[in-house]
Structures are given as structure tokens and as C-alpha cells.
């Protein structure tokens, strides 16, 4: 274990970041991973719990105490092996995971949790830097072929696992680049995209074939895959954004976040976008207080918005959760993201009543304050107010997968419109078709997507081979 009394001696250390003033000038990542020494000290804080809640708090069940200890002892290569044994893509989660592990960390009961995510970040960065991350092609091929639809984290994790088990894997992506939300949902300043490219190189060497611009269920009939492949994995995400059906929704200047964010990522990637949707000089209102909303805030500020305001329907959560009743679970509490630090007005318990504008262009937003009681909301009479805006970004979450593919394949759905499959087998109502990630569970975290991708791969392997050695 780390150091027996480390948690009493050392403080939690945050990763250093560039000042907002500086980082707003570019699109690059601005967080600096811990030095080896600092990571070691952070590892020393780990108590190597007899019952490590972090491990069950982590959706991929990272063996956190073990690699904390290995980092403490500066045994980075073994730490990397241990980390990779449960997580295909720590460079993604080490950057953009909200870290439920840290919420579950035992130290979080009454102190600051171990900086687990920063250690993960340090391990994988060092791993790439040192050339330790190399392809692991299977010793032999099985001759089986699997199609993976969607190249987000679930699809990628699934594909990598299946390829390592010796199957021929083809990943189909409807966009022009691989990565799904990783590629086009998360801004570069949170996660640079060469990380995905690097992983793709590794996966190609392991035998994964990527095919982009393949909109299965639209341009490409889904049936074709079912016929051609021994198994099909649906990992297309939950892309259907939640709309805001209020008067004025159709005004120009009111967009989904997912109409706004991908364009910027493409520009950063070197694409030319005609008439890019930009916030420059605009009064931006972001509706929705989640991570996507945050990304809209950060992107708007980098564009040079005149002002950025973010509304949330729910009441302002407490600064500090009621730990005795919440730990080790994920707490609802006030979270201030790096994008918020860069400048933003936040307001809670606000419902948008309507948009108003001229010439088909939005000019203001009329909202009302809410009172919440026992989970029920009520408008506060006379609390209507107006805010001037010329760009409204809707970041209110996603309602589920695009239905076309599901309908075409004819898989059963659950009552939320997701693909119906359990987390034991990940098998849909159609035997050889499997589903994983947001397409199955609804919108969620990257780390959940990786978990489902891995577990689904195991199930597919077992389906194809009769038994499997892939870990769950």
C-alpha cells in the first residue's frame, strides 16, 4: 500500500492549470499532469482500503489501490499495466471523467480524496511518452468478424477487446472521423484529438478496421451488416438532444449544443467550415447546467463572447453534499468547472418561457423563476424576467439514440427508446446483435461507455466462441 500514514501527512494536490487569461487564447489542453514525484506523493495518500470503495465507485472498476501504490513506489510500467487491465483508454478518462472514484474514496468521507484521476492521467501520459503503449495483436485469429456501429468510447473499447481476442473487427462511423462524442462533443481544450488518433493507430495494428462516413441505418442498410458479420455491436450513442419546445424556439440563434461544439472541433482539426457558428461578440445564454453546457461556456469564451450566462432548471445544489447520507455515491453538489472559472453567470431554478426576436433572430429570452418542493417545481408568480441574448445554446441532455437504426434492425427497445439488452449479455432481441454504451443505457459518462464496451466484447466473444477469456 502507499504509505501507511501518508493520508495524514500529505495534502491532496490538484493538477496545475494555465491561468484563464492565458488559456482562453488557445484551444489546447491547459491542465498539466502531476510530476512523477507529485504523483508519487498523491499515491502515498492512498490507504489501500480493505474495502476499496473507489474500485466499486469506478464504473470500469479500476484497481485503484494497486496502481496508487505502484506510483508511490515509482513503478510506472506496472502501474500502467494494472491500469490498462481494466481500462482501455485511461487517457480519455484521465482527462474528462468526473471521477466518481474520488467521490467514493474513503478519504472523501471527512477529508479530501486521493487525486485518483490525476494519478491516472500521469500514468497514461507517462506510458505513451515512454513508448510502453504498444499494440497487442492477438496470437491467433479466430476467423470471426464483428461489426461495431459507432466509434464512441463504447464502440472503441468493444472493438479493441474483440480484436485482441482475435476477431476481425470493423468499426463503422457515420461522421468523417472516428471517436463519436470524444471527437466532436468534447472540446479540444478538454481533450486534444491526437489522443484518439494515437489509439486508432494502436487498434489498427491490433487488427481493427475503421470505416468512416458510414451511416448505418441510413446510407448503409443495417441488414447488410447483420448478414455479413458474425456479430454486430450497436454502440451508436444517445444522440437525440432534448429540445425546448417554447415559443421562439425556431428563431435563428437558438441551437443545440451539438450544432455548435462539433464545428469548433473540426476547425481545430484543420477543416474549413463555412459560416461557422461562433459566439464572438455575442451575448450567449446556455440552457442546461451539465458538462455539455460547460463546454459551450468554454467554447463561447474562447470565441470571445460578450457575455455568457448559463441557466439551470434545477435549484442550486449545495456547496457541500450531506456526506454521511451520500458517500460513497455520486453527490449532487455545486460543481464549478474550469470553463466556469473562465467567466460565466450561472443561475438556477430558471425555466425558459419563450424566446423573442426580430427578423427571425433571437434577441431576448424570457424566463421565470421556479420554486422546488419535494421534487415538484412551481413557477414563482411575478418572477418573470428577460435577458438579452443573441445566441442560445441548448445543452439539456439527450433523450436517446436516433431511432432509425433501431427500427431498421428491428431490435426491441426499452421504455425510454433505448436498445433493450441486459448488462449480463448485452444481447438484443436479435441474437447476433449486441448493444453497449449510451445506445443501450441512455446518456451517460465516457467511463460507463468503456465499461459497457468491454463487457459487451466479452459477451460477444463468448457468443462466438462458446467460452471467453476476456475479463468483464
Amino acid at each position, binding site marked *: 500500500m502507499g504509505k*501507511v*500514514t501518508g*493520508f*495524514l501527512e500529505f495534502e491532496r494536490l490538484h493538477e496545475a492549470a494555465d491561468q484563464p487569461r492565458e488559456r482562453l487564447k488557445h484551444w489546447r489542453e491547459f491542465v498539466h499532469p502531476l510530476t512523477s514525484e507529485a504523483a508519487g506523493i498523491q499515491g502515498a495518500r492512498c*490507504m*489501500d*482500503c*480493505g*474495502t*476499496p*470503495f473507489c*474500485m*466499486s*465507485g469506478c464504473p470500469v*472498476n479500476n*484497481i485503484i*489501490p*494497486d496502481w496508487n501504490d505502484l506510483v508511490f513506489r515509482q513503478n510506472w510500467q506496472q502501474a500502467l*499495466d*494494472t491500469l490498462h*487491465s481494466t481500462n482501455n483508454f485511461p487517457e480519455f478518462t484521465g482527462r474528462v471523467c468526473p471521477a466518481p472514484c474520488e467521490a*467514493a474514496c*474513503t*478519504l472523501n*468521507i*471527512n*477529508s479530501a480524496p486521493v487525486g485518483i484521476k490525476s494519478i491516472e492521467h500521469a500514468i497514461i501520459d507517462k506510458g505513451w511518452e515512454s513508448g510502453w503503449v504498444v499494440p497487442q495483436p492477438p*496470437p491467433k485469429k479466430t476467423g470471426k468478424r464483428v461489426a461495431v456501429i459507432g466509434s464512441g468510447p463504447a464502440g472503441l473499447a468493444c472493438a479493441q477487446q474483440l480484436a*485482441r481476442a482475435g476477431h476481425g473487427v470493423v468499426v463503422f462511423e457515420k461522421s468523417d472521423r472516428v471517436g463519436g462524442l470524444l471527437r466532436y462533443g468534447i472540446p479540444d481544450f478538454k481533450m486534444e484529438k491526437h489522443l484518439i488518433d494515437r489509439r486508432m493507430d494502436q487498434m489498427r495494428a491490433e487488427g481493427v478496421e475503421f470505416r468512416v462516413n458510414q451511416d448505418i441505418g441510413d446510407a448503409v442498410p443495417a441488414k447488410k451488416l447483420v448478414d455479413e458479420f458474425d456479430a454486430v455491436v450497436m454502440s451508436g450513442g444517445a444522440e437525440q438532444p432534448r429540445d425546448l419546445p417554447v415559443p421562439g424556439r425556431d428563431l435563428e440563434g437558438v441551437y443545440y449544443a451539438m450544432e455548435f461544439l462539433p464545428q469548433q472541433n473540426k476547425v481545430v482539426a484543420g477543416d474549413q467550415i463555412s459560416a461557422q457558428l461562433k459566439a464572438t461578440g455575442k451575448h450567449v445564454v446556455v440552457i442546461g447546467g451539465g458538462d455539455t453546457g460547460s463546454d459551450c461556456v468554454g467554447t463561447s469564451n474562447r470565441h470571445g463572447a460578450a457575455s455568457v450566462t448559463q441557466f439551470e432548471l434545477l435549484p442550486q445544489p449545495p456547496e457541500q453534499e450531506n456526506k*454521511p*447520507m451520500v*458517500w*460513497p*455515491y455520486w453527490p449532487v453538489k455545486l460543481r464549478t468547472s474550469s470553463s466556469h472559472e473562465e467567466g460565466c453567470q450561472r443561475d438556477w431554478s430558471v425555466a425558459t418561457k419563450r424566446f423573442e426576436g426580430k427578423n427571425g433572430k433571437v434577441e431576448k429570452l424570457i424566463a421565470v423563476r421556479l420554486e422546488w418542493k419535494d421534487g415538484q417545481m412551481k413557477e414563482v408568480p411575478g418572477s418573470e424576467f428577460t435577458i438579452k441574448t443573441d445566441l442560445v445554446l441548448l445543452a439539456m441532455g439527450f433523450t436517446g439514440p436516433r431511432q432509425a437504426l433501431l427500427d431498421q434492425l428491428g431490435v426491441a427497445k426499452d421504455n425510454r427508446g433505448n436498445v433493450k439488452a441486459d448488462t449480463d449479455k448485452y444481447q438484443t432481441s436479435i441474437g447476433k446483435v449486441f448493444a453497449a454504451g449510451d445506445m443501450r443505457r441512455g446518456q451517460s459518462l465516457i467511463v460507463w461507455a468503456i465499461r459497457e464496451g468491454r463487457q459487451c466484447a466479452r459477451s460477444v466473444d463468448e457468443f462466438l466462441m462458446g467460452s471467453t*477469456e*476476456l*475479463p*468483464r
Partner: protein
Amino acid sequence: MAHPNLPEPQGLYDGDHEHDACGVGFIANIKGKKSHDIVDQGLTILRNLTHRGAVGADPKASDGAGILIQIPDTFFREEMAKHGVKLPPPGQYGIGMVFLPREPASRLACEYEIERAIKDEGQTLIGWRDVPVDSEDLGESVKKVEPVIRQVFIGRSSAIRVTDALERKLYVIRKSAGHAIRALNLAHGTEFWVPSMSARTIVYKGMLLPSQVGTYYKDLQDPRVVSALALVHQRFSTNTFPTWDLAHPFRMIAHNGEINTVRGNVNWVRARQGAISSPVLGNDLNKLWPLIYPGQSDSASFDNALELLVMGGYSIAHAMMMMIPEAWEGHTLMDPSRRAFYEYHAAMMEPWDGPAAIAFSDGRQIGATLDRNGLRPARYIVTDDDLVIMGSECGCLPIPEEKIIKKWRLQPGKMFLVDLEKGRIIEDEELKESLASSKPYVEWMERIRVKLDDVESQKAQPERSSVPLLDRQQAFGYTQEDLKFLMLPMATNGEEPIGSMGNDSPPAVLSNKNKSLYQYFKQLFAQVTNPPIDPIREELVTSLVSFIGPKPNLLGIDEMNPPIRLEVGQPVLDFFEMEKIRNIDSYTDGKFKSCELDITYPVAWGKEAIEARLASLAAQAEDAVRTGYSILIISDRRVDREHVAIPALLALSTIHHHLTDKGLRTSAGLVVETGSAREVHHFALLGGYGAEAVHPYLALETVLQLAESGQFGTNVDGYKAIKNFVKAVGKGLRKVMSKMGISTYMSYTGAQIFEAIGLSRPLIQKYFTGTASNVGGIGLFEVAEEAIRTHLGAFSGDPVLAGALDAGGEYAWRVRGEDHMWTPDAIAKLQHAARANSAATYREYADIINDQSQRHMTFRGLFDFRFHRCTPVDIDEVEPAADIVKRFSTGAMSLGSISTEAHATLAVAMNRLGGKSNTGEGGEDRKRYAPIKAGETMASRLGADRVVIDIPLLAGDSLKSKIKQVASGRFGVTAEYLASAEQIQIKMAQGAKPGEGGQLPGRKVSEYIAEIRYSTPGVELISPPPHHDIYSIEDLAQLIHDLKNSNTRASISVKLVSEVGVGTVAAGVAKAKADHVTISGHDGGTGASPWSSIKHAGTPWELGLAETQQTLVLNRLRSRIAVQVDGQIKTGRDVIIGALLGADEFGFATAPLVAEGCIMMRKCHLNTCPVGVATQDPVLRKKFTGKPEHVINYFFFVAEEIRGLMAKLGIRKFNDLIGRSDLLDMRKGIEHWKARGLDFSRIFHQPQIGPEVSRFHTETQDHGLDKALDHRLIELAMPALERGEKVTIEMPIRNINRTVGTMLSGEVARRYGHEGLPDDTIRVRFAGSAGQSLGAFLSRGITLELIGDTNDYCGKGLSGGRIAVQPSPKFRGDALYNIITGNAVLYGAIAGEAYFRGVAGERFAVRNSGAHTVVEGVGDHGCEYMTGGTVTVLGATGRNFAAGMSGGIAYVYDEDGTFASYCNTSMVKLEPLLTEAEQDAKVARDIWHMGESDETVLKRFIENHARLTGSNRAQQILADWPTTRRRFLKVFPNEYRRALGELAAKGKKIAA
């Protein structure tokens, strides 16, 4: 076969587990003068030892008693003459005392067989005599099984010329008649028994009360019945079944104690069969087998073996020395020829090890010997008219003091022999000297002993497998945890690894992981009927010496050229040692020859192949031995991708049993070379099933690899790491052995001290014969399948195992590891439920625990309720929750293991809800006793500096723990502590570490903890493995009696741990008058324990509880005693199952701890608990957030869950649940591949016994307190008790007056607390021999002065009172050379003074923490574990003085300058005694004992001694002080010195 009069084995009850212990004594006329007086006096001794026995449900049904005397020739001659029979001259005929069946035809059949045997042996039948008896006074249950008792008279043939030869013939007649009768297989044949058949002695015994022996047998009243010796015995058995033959004496012995190694001993006797020949018995030898019938008691087996040796030509003393040798192995002071004698015989017979005082006689000599550890008392006196009287107690036969010339005791390993023919006493020294020099043992040993260490070898590098290490590790199921938790600490520190909290993982048979065969076995351990021993502080009696290879002929008394033997100092062989064994032929010029048996086989053959492979191995082994190989190497080193290893334990046991069955086992040694053995438990199993040595090549390679990768740091290289690892295994082995009270590896080898959990009966019967396995489980092919699964995993492409070992998850929870009941979610849900008082969240928690349809965790998880048989009732009709919770108590967690806040919170909660909390073994702050008044908080009551996080309290709350624990350390066990209890719990064992002691390191002994434990802050505290006042069941009865006297209102509870046979122990506990018994599961928690104990000792409580219930009901004892169960009880479902299996009450520990904040960190032993529960660090304690309400909420949830289930079961009253195991069933359709073979029918068994026998607790015990002398004392002391006036009382005292002064002390403590009364307020002067426990827990203000002597445990727990004992002025002996008080005197004394003018027995002032005492000599182990106070010894000490002594001071008068060799200096230093002036000049005052100079302190105590006891010795010393002073040595514990220095430094810092 169980004993005939015991019930058939049924359910979990098996008569094989019965234990007994007792009182023993003898009287003899040294000159051999026969008289009827001797017989009478023998019977008097018997009557005076009555309290050492027990009675069962029927007060007239004792456990048996008897007497052995010389044949009174005149009496029989005249009696037989009446029938017209003329007896031959004395010595030319023999008498058989025979118990015969009452059924006439069977009786005749038995008599016929005897007569036939007489004829076959060429002797003559003289006649039969009906033994006249008076059975009127017998109890009903006894009468029912009373045998017909007849004597058969046998005359000698002309070929027989001497009595010895006749004795041998009688022996052969008895054995062959017995075999023949057994072969008849008659239903009534089992009543046949021959108590004696001899030309010299006769035994009268039966299922009689001590007082009945003389009245039942009319012969004994006849004045013509004369003898020069009488050996008597009173038995205390754990059962209540009438068994006439189990009474002692046997034909040659009477035994007080227990032979722990009996199974191994019996096996070894059998194993020798083929290798024994006797020049004396000749062909008659063949008629004797089987020598020992299965199912016989340990004493009977011992008697059989002793008889064989004596009949084979050894003298009885010689034979006793072979069977119970002294601890010669590490005895540096022993004479070389005596050592050689023992060493020579060590290879012929394994020690019969265990607590034993054995009195023996062949009719010409009578004597006694004591086990090597001195665990039983035996006192004797010699009178001026040639009488010798020996007994378990002094004073058992009152003799006028003026007639006594010597009072002494048997010392550990010593023998005492009276030769009636020579007419003198032969002392140990002379006796052994003459035997040791009778043959050239020293010279022989030098010639025949080959020490493996000394064998010259080529030091060739061992051959290594070409299979990669990782693959082989995986093939043997290594996990990352094996390396991290076990092997790393072992190889780094040479110590066993420590862990904490309980074991909440499934047993191997339920695990989804592939487990090794080792994990299906649980270590057995000693509790109550025999003590565990202390392998650390009493290491001198333990030994790991092992002989590899052929053993000499047991009866080779005429040996001129004994065979050589190969000896190893300990049984774990490293690479070079193994290489020597492999090539031993070339290194020893062919004296030894080894051959290898390869136990791998092609994996392609599959699991079915294992059976035939094992058969072939057995045959191969047999052939090898027959062709002259002397060492068989059972090896799996050829394991590779294609070859799977048969589990080494299975292969070994198969071969061992096969060779034993063939009588060849002692012709060759078995060495196991295996990759599987890596932790202590594995080595223990291999030893326990017959390996003389083990070479764990893979573990050693692993250690080397860890060393190469730098895991041990710079100080430990590969060589050192291996050494450390071997050392750690050795230490662990000693611990495992000593848990069972076994001292030597020799007698542990093959002793099979294990039980199996999850192995099928056929598998056990065929390959592990004699091992208990009560729930069935996997069979041979599944064992093979599991091994193959592990093997295939190792060599497969499994990516998880490609570069790393399996994660494990046994020791810490891992997602992909072994399952645990306490998952993160279970912990979180329970905490949220308790904090928010949310029943819904509790439901979620309970579902995680209860629903084991997916996760199989416990046996009870696989139980189903037979709801279909029940008519549900409305829940409102069910007993209210507020009543149910009164049955709950929290576990014994000491303040010290958990924080003040955590500890007191539990107490408040339990007191609020009407349950009970338990102090644990650390004493209790007296401030907690009074009820809380309005406005008080925890901090205001206990002190703001002692409570880091204050907890608000309510008026009427109480911080007091109702249950006061009494553990082996006796920390803080004062009269006041006991007086404040509602229940006093004697902790015999703890689920997490049964049979082990513990220690609290000095750094954890804070000022507060030191205060309540009456010790010095910073001084390490050791809890010994045994209670030093409980070495047997009658000792426990005595302690129960002591505690009941100290607080007559409290119930006395005994805590046991579930293991096979625990039910029998519980029955014994009930007979010992306990009011309450706790059966703990193996899985209970701990603050710190070796992992091997947490994981591998004890069994699930489902087994132990069910066995207890069945045995108690069968014995009709259940109503007398409340039964509590604990061990990972978490939910209402657990409670219901506990009740259905027989529990009245329920203990919870981990769950309420979790409710108040514990998160199962398993870091208790590191003091770093981050939630302030199991730590003393104030910084961490601040983080404690528990509230009494949380605990209360939890218990009410449990109670409501119980009510719900009761309603479904249709049971309104909780009492109606108890014992209703018919409502349980095994869950159907369990798919788990290993669990399929489980069979719980034995757990669910209900004894078929009438409805008048209660199934739950309904009655109270009769403690016999009305007979206590203290009632009179209290009455006379009333002026003192009520008004503090001084009183003086005088009265006589006898050995039957036990625990005198204790009830009076309880009265003082209840009124005046620990401060008591001013010294000497109540002064009592006694004369006589005081019974056991004189002045136990004596309160301040009471002075007991005794003229005479005392028995064991005098001044136990002394709590401020004063005791002074001096011999009678009429007694002529010199106090310095005569014993005045017994064993374990002043054990756990806290305060007060005691003066003994004379010598004390073994273990004087053990665990003394504050009393001051003067004595004129002590036995072995004086001042062991002492933590405070002052001991002054004015005479000689025994060995191992000051072992484990961490505090206080001893001053020893070292007259002859030898003391240093008797002192164990591992924790103390010896210093000269300085004058005050010298001390002032040389030693800082800070570290002066009691702040005074040694000279002042010592002189004061010697002066007190002189004044209070009139000691000559003291006066002489004082008279010549300047000279005598220089002869004193000061025994100064290192810990104490350090702590004094630190305290002083701290004081200065505060002052500055």
C-alpha cells in the same frame, strides 16, 4: 466406533469428541506395609476431591470414580475358600475384574470367551466370584446401565515361573478375549469391559460418586481388604451419559488432563505394527492387535500403549519417560546422558502431549509424572510414618502437620516414584540418572544421529523447471495477495503477516474461484478441556525437530546396534537441504536411500484419472519401502503445460494412510516437495497429515524472484529472504501446534488436527481417514477438476493471467476477486439506513446480505425456510421488537482495539435499548458505572481530555458495559469491575484467532488505556494464549465458581468458538455451572491477528451452534444454560436461523460497528482507522461520527425484519423459534458446481428426545454458593462492611473451602469500590489447607492470614487485599524446601500484598500488574507477562523466569549464582542490587521503581515478610544485610525502563 453407552453419532454429535479431566490422588506406604487404612484413606482422598468432578442432569449420576489397590490375597483366599476354591500362593494367580452384560446369554458368551482365552493361553480357570455390590444409592440413569460385575480367578501354568510372566499372560488373555468378544458383534457385547486383570492389582470403579465407591463395592469395606497403595480418581466428563468403563483408574494409570495428540499417537502405534518385534512377548505380540480400539478415550489409549511398553519389557518409569518426555530439545541445563536418553527414545515414540498429571502403578511401584509444561497440579507429602500422599490438591487427606516431613509438588516433566519393594522414594534425579546411564545413550546418539545440517554435500544448484515461474505459480493457484499479504511480510521480517476484522468470504466449497485443497481444511484448536500453549514466551517446551526416515523398533529393548536416523531442526527444507535428501544415498554411504514419487499426471487424462493415479502411487510407495527405500519424496516439480499436479496434501495423505495400514509407515520417511505450499496453513496441513519435511520449491523461487526485483529493500537479499521465510513458517507452525496445546512437531506429524468443510464423506473416509467433515461437499473428482481448472487457467491464453497473477481478493475486497459479504454497497446502505432511520434503505442492505441466490457466501445463505409448513400469523400478534432487541448484545471489542467514543457509543445504545454491550478484554473506566444525569455528555463524564468528539447523552443513559469480559490477560479485572457486571464473560477463544493470545504494543498503551488496565503507559501488554488458571474443564468450573462468588448477581458466560466437538465442550461448560455460553463463528472480527488464524481456524457458527444445541439437548442440559451465537450476524434472517438452530441470544459486532461508521478498512492493527473507530490517534478519533441512535436504529430494523419472518413462520413468541431446525431446508436447485455435494441434514438434525426436555433456556444453575465459607465471613464482617469498624475473625479451613474471601470482597467492592476499606479492616485468620483460589479478587481492607498451606490460584486477581501464609509451627520442614502454595498464584493480581513463607508452584505472579509479594521459592515461568508490581523471591526459581515480563520489578536472592541461567532475558536485564547511595549516584531517579531506591523497596518488603509470616529466611537476610544485599539481583524489564524514561521526559516537558 463411539463408546457403547454414548448415544450413536447423530446430527453433529459424535461421542469421539468427549473429553474428561478430573481429580487424581494416591496414598502409599513406602515400606510396602499393607493395611485397610490405606484403602480407607484412599477413599477419603476421593471424597475430598469431589468438587473436581461433575454431575449431570441427574445429580446422582457422576462421571465416574474408582480406586486401584493391590490384590488383598487373604481376603480373596478366604472368600474363595467359602466356595470351596483354594487359591494358589500370592503372585501365582491373577484376578480379572470384569463388567459383564446384564443380558444372561450375552454374559455367558463373554464369560465363555474369557475362559477360552485362558485355556488357549495354557492357563487355568480357578473360578468366578460375584462381586457384592450395594446399588441402592445409585442414580436412576446409572442403575439402568449397571453391569454385572464378576471377578475371574486365573491360575498359572507350570511354564510360568515368575509373576511378571503371569502378568504378560494375563495381558494376552485379556486382549485376546476382548478381541474375540468384539468379533462376536453382540448388541450387548459393548457392555463388556475388563477394568483390571492382574496378579498384583485390582481396580474397583464405576459410574459412581466419589462417596459411593466405598459403599457400592462391599469388598472395600472389608477390613481384610488391605493394600500398601491406593490410587484414586474422580472424573469430570463433558457428557452426562452413563459410562461405567470410562471411569478411572485404568489398568495402570489414572490421568488428570487431556492428550491433545491422541489421534496421531494412536495412528503411529498402528503405523508401527509391522515394524515391531518383541524379544519378551515373542509371538504373543500378534495377539494384541489392534492395540487400541477406535473411539477409546485418550486416557484409555494411553493406558493401552503404556501397558504394551511395560509388557514389552520396559520398566514402568522407563515407559512413562518414553511417552511423556521432558522438554529436552532446548534444555541447556539438562545432563547430557539424560538428553541422549530422551533423544534416543524420541524416534521410537512421539510424545503423548497435552496437559497431564498421570499417576501410575504396576502394583510394586507407584508414581506420577507431569507433562513437560506443568499444566496440571500434583502435590504430595511424605510423613514420618512412611506414608506418601499425592493429589491434585494439598489437604485432600488431612494429616497432622507434625507428622509431615516433606511437602512438595510434581514439577513439569518430572517424575516421582515410590518403590514399595525397595521401600523408598526414588526422586526424579536419581531415577532418570539411573535409566539414562543404563545404556551408552550418549555414545549411541553420536553414532546413529545424522543431522541433515551436518551432511556434507556438493551444494549443487538445484535443478529448476524450464516452465516460467509465473505459469507455475498460476498452476498452483498463487494470487497477487499471496505475495503481497503473506509472502512479502514473511520473507521481509520472518514474521507471520497480520490482518484485522473478520473473514466475510465464502468457504472454499461455495467460492466461485478455484481454491486449493488446503482451503477446505480448518485448524482445530484447544478450548476449555485443554489449554493452548504459548509458543513465544514458553518456547522452551516447543520443538520443531523432525526425524526423516525409518524409526527404530518400539519394543527393541535388547537393541545393541540401533539403526541410524536422520534429524532436521525444523521441517521446512531449502534448496540445498532438498538436494541432500535427493542424493542422500551418496552422502551417507548408502545408509539412507531416497526415491521420488511423481504426483503429476497428464492433464489430458482428465479428472477421472486421479483415482487410479492415487492407487498407483500408494502401491509404488509400498513397493519402494519394501525394496528398502528409507525416504520417499512426494514431488510435483514435474508440473508443466501437459502435466497437472495431484494436490500434494491428497497424495501425501493417501500414501501416509496406505503405509500406515500396511504397518510400514515407520519404515520410511515422507518428504513432500511441492509448489503448492506457501503459507503456514499449508505446512501445518502437510505436517498434520504425515509429512516429516516439506520442500516448498516454488515459494522459495518466488521469494528469490521478489528479492531480485528489490521488493525487500536493500537489507534483505535472496539468501536472507529465504531464511526469513523459513523462519516465519517455523514460527507459524509453532503457533498452529500450540493452538491445540501440542508442543512438538514430532507428535503433530500425522496428528490430523483439522476438520474439513466442504469435502464429501467418501473422500474423507478413503483419503483423510478420521477427519471430521460434517456438511459433505466435493468428492475426489471435483478435487481433481478444481486442480485441473487452476492448471488450465495457468497455461491458457487468459489475458488477465497473461502477465500477472490472479488478483485474489481474499484479504481485501476486489471487484474481480473473491466475494465478500461486506461489499461497498452493503456498507453504504447500512450506514445510510442507520443514519437516516430509513427502513427502505435497510431493506436494500438486508437484500444484499440475505439474497445469496447469485452469490453463495455462507451455509445459511443456502438454507430455505419451510414456509409451506407454516400458517402465517398477523404481524401484530408477534412479540414486539422492543422485547426482541433485549436478546442482542454487541461483541467484545476492547477499549484499545476501538476508540473511547466508538466503545462508549455502543454501550449507550445497548443500554438504551435494553441489550448488552461488552467491555472486551481491556477493563473499564470506573467513571462509566453510574447512570448519566441530565446535562451530562460523554466528555463531561469521562473527561474532556479523554473524549475527542463529544457525544450528547440523555438523562438515565448509561456508559456501563453490562457484560464484563475476563480474558487471559485479565487487564483491569478487579473486584469492583466484576461487581459492576450483569454478566461476566470468560473468553476461552475468539473467532478470529482461537487459541492465540494477543499483544498491545507499547505505543498503543496510552495513559488512559494504561489507567484502566492498571499498567504503565507505553509498556507492551501481552494476553497469553491460555488462561493460566484454566488448563482443563475442572479449572474452568473453578473460575466460574470464583467469578460467581465475586458477583453472585451476575450470570457467568463462557465464550467458545465453533469447531467440531464444540457441542461437547459446551456440555462440559454447562456442567461446570456456566449460566451462559457463546458460540462464535470462525469469521468474527479482530483488531489484529495472523491472517492464517483469521482465515483457517474455526468453522461457521451454523455448525457449532447446531452441534451445541443437539449435544445439550441430548444431555438434558439445555434448560440450564443460555446459548448465544455470534459471528458475522448482520440481518434478521441471520438471527432467525440462529434461533432455529438453537440460540437464545445473539451477538453482533461488525454490523453495529459499521452502523457507527466502520468502513471495513481492515487497518485496525495499524492504528490508522480513518473514521475514528478502531484507532487511539486523537487526530483520527476526531473523525468519528457515530451516534447511539444509529446503532439503535440498526437493531430495531433487524428486530422488525425478524418479526416479519416470524409472522410468515407463524410463530408469535421468540422462544418458540428456538431449536426448530425442522423449519429449515436446504435450498433447492443450487447450480454451483461445488456446492452440489453439500448436505446440511446433520445441521438440521433434532435429537429424538422427549418433550419434557427443554430446547431453550428455562432454569438457573445451582452454583452451590450456599456452602461457601464467605456467608459466615460476611456475617461476621458486617460491622466493617456497614460501619468500617475493624473486625478480626478466626476459623479453620479445608481444601473443600474454595474461593474463600471472594464473596466478601464483592461486598466490599460493591459498597466501597476499588478503594475498598482501610488496610486490615477485616482480618481473618485461618488454619489448615485452604482450597483453590483463596483470596481471589480480594478487596482492599481485607487481610487473610493462613497458617497451613494453600492450593492453586491463591490471590488470583488480588484487588488490594493482603494475604500472608506461613506453615504451621508444628511442621518440621524448612520453608525454603517445602511448598506452601500452588500454581498460578497471584495470576492477574492488580493491587495488594501477598507473603508466602515457603515455595510456590509454577507460574507465580503471572500477569501481575500491581501486587507486591514475597515468596521463598517459585517454580517455572515465574513473573511471566508481568506488567507491574514487585516480586521478591528469597529462594530458588524455576526455569523461564520473567518470560514476556514487560513491567514491574523482581528481586531474586541468588544464593548460588545460578539465577541467570533460569531467567529468560529476552525482555529483561539483570542488574546488581545497589545501595541507595550507589543508586543515587549512578541511576537517574526517573527510572526508580515506585520512585524509591531498590534497597528501600526491597528491605521494606522483606521486613513485612518477616513480620507477617515469621520467616527465618527473611530474618537471616536482614540480619546480614550488607552481605546478603549483594546476592540480590534486580530483574528490570526493558520495556518498563524505556517507559519510565519516556514518562519522565514527558513530565519534564509538561513542567517546562
